[in-house]
Structures are given as structure tokens and as C-alpha cells.
């Protein structure tokens, strides 16, 4: 029962994270390159017009959306077997270097905070924690 509740929690958080990342991707696509908008929200315009908003031309937020989609896909039915849980845990561990790098860039390199980016980072870390808890509870 607890595993099922945790799985639903992971799925719900992944869905929220997907929504946030999708919104940031849409905002990034709409943000014209070539100048910095002063009418953006909080520090997001500063971050989304930086060179770090895209990796090889791909919006960083889109990569985050992909990560959340895979989490959602793995979370649904994760209680069915250990293999799925291993994949979920392994995929969630990617949150550590990903969030670490993006948070460093946001806070130290750019020196701005985008609440939407930060909330996606927090969601990623919470998903990782829940995945670890599920792994530890797997034989209970």
C-alpha cells in the first residue's frame, strides 16, 4: 500500500514537473534571441536569454520535460516489479548532476533566480528521494 502511494506521489510530482518544464520550454521558444527582454517575470528572462538556456540549440527546459516524461512513464506501474523500480531509481539519480549543474549556473554563474526553474529542480530532487524510499521499502 505504501509503495503504491509513493508511486502515485512520484507520478503526480512528475506531472507537475512536466507542466512547469513545458511552460518554460514554451516561454523559451517564444523568447526572441538577440536581445534581453525587460518585461519577463522575476529573473527568468535573465536566465532564459542566457547562453545556458539552450544546449546545442535544444532548450534546457525541454530536456527537463523529457526527464519528467520518462519518470512519469516509469512511475506508472512501478509497483508491478523490481525491474521497473531499478529503472526509476537509476533515472532519478540523473537529477543529482543535472540539478547540481543547473542550480550552480543559475545562482553562481548567472546570479539570478527563476522560480519556475527552481521549482522544477526541487521536484526532481523530491522524486529522487521518493524513488530511494521506494527502493528501500521494496521487500517490505
Amino acid at each position: 500500500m505504501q509503495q503504491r502511494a509513493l508511486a502515485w506521489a512520484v507520478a503526480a510530482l512528475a506531472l507537475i514537473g512536466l507542466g512547469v518544464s513545458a511552460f518554460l520550454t514554451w516561454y523559451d521558444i517564444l523568447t526572441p534571441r538577440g536581445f534581453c527582454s525587460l518585461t519577463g517575470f522575476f529573473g527568468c528572462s535573465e536566465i532564459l536569454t542566457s547562453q545556458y538556456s539552450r544546449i546545442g540549440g535544444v532548450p534546457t527546459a525541454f530536456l527537463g520535460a523529457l526527464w519528467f516524461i520518462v519518470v512519469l512513464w516509469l512511475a506508472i506501474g512501478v509497483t508491478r516489479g523490481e525491474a521497473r523500480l531499478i529503472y526509476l531509481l537509476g533515472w532519478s539519480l540523473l537529477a543529482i548532476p543535472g540539478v547540481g549543474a543547473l542550480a550552480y549556473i543559475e545562482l553562481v554563474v548567472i546570479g539570478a533566480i527563476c522560480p519556475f526553474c527552481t521549482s522544477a529542480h526541487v521536484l526532481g530532487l523530491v522524486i529522487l528521494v521518493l524513488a530511494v524510499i521506494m527502493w528501500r521499502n521494496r521487500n517490505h
Partner: protein
Amino acid sequence: MSSHSKSNSKQRKKGFSRGEKIIGLVILVVAIWAVYSFTQPPSPSTTTTSTGTTATGVPVAPDFTLPVVTQDGLTGQRISLSSFRGKVVLLEFMEPWCSVCQDMAPMLDRLYAQYEAQNVVFLAVAGPYNSATADDAAKFIRDYGTAWTFVYDSSGTTFTTYGVSATPTFFLIAKNGSIDTRYEGTNATFEILAAGLTRLNS
């Protein structure tokens, strides 16, 4: 063990049903297509042209008086735009944190090196958006070795007066103080700004 329970056991080991594998494959294909799309260059019809906005019959550029910033910070001096009447002015509205402003600094440096000797004034107005301070502007000056005059608009009023909503925004101001042309961001290439300055200064 029955064949049905064998099948269930196998699925438990693998963890994915056929339907879930198909969904996973769809996710992968969509992801690859999206990444491919993002990495393709934009079509010519969406490329912005490098044109500015020519103002005809425009009155004198709104005057302002703002504190001067150097690489050491605020100097205590104040400068008015009207003090440059009789000279061509390249007026730039910028933000120290703006990556485009940073990227364009070397180009402006080259432009300044060419036109400063021809009595053209380069004046940059640093703004307060995203909590940018005069010290941030000073750091920008140090980091990019800019030699032209910087002032700091602590309230953003001058930005508002000029209708600036993005940085960098450039105004070419004629000797009589009227706004000749306005450019935003990378639309202001070296060649375009140089051509405008040469025309106004002739």
C-alpha cells in the same frame, strides 16, 4: 507452474508490458524528432532583417540627467544628454546582466575606436532591472574594458521615457538632438551603426 503464471512471472521480471514498451518507443521517437527540430536553423522567412526604425518629424530626444558610473562605481558627477547637443550621439540602453549586451560590447568597442575621434558621443544608460545596481554597471565596465561614458538610471524612468523594453536598445541621435533611428539587440550590427553614424556626422 502454469503457462499463465510463467508469463506473469516473466513480465514481473521485465517490468514492462507490450503497451508500455510501445509508449516508451513513442516517447523516444518524439524526443528525437523534437531535438532534431530544435537543432535545425530557422527558415529564411523567420530571420529578422537588420533594419531600424526611422523616426520622421520626431521632436528632440527626451533630455535626462543621470549619475556617471566608471569602473570604480558612481563618481558623484551627473551628465545631461542635452550637453551633447551639436554632436552625434549613439545612445545605448543596456543591462549589465544582459548576455546580449555583453556579447555586443566588443563590437561597440571597435565602433567607439573608430568614431570617438570624429567627435561622436557614445553614451550608455545602465538600468536597474532585475535588481541591477551601479556597482553591477561598474563591474561590466571593468570586465569588458569599455571606454565610453556610462550613466545609471536607478529608477528606470529614462528607460520608460524612451520606451525601452529590451536591451540593448540603441538610438542614433542627430546633431540637432532629434532621434534618427532606433535599433534593438543584434539588429544593430557594426555596419549598420557605422553607416548611420557616418551619415549623421557628415
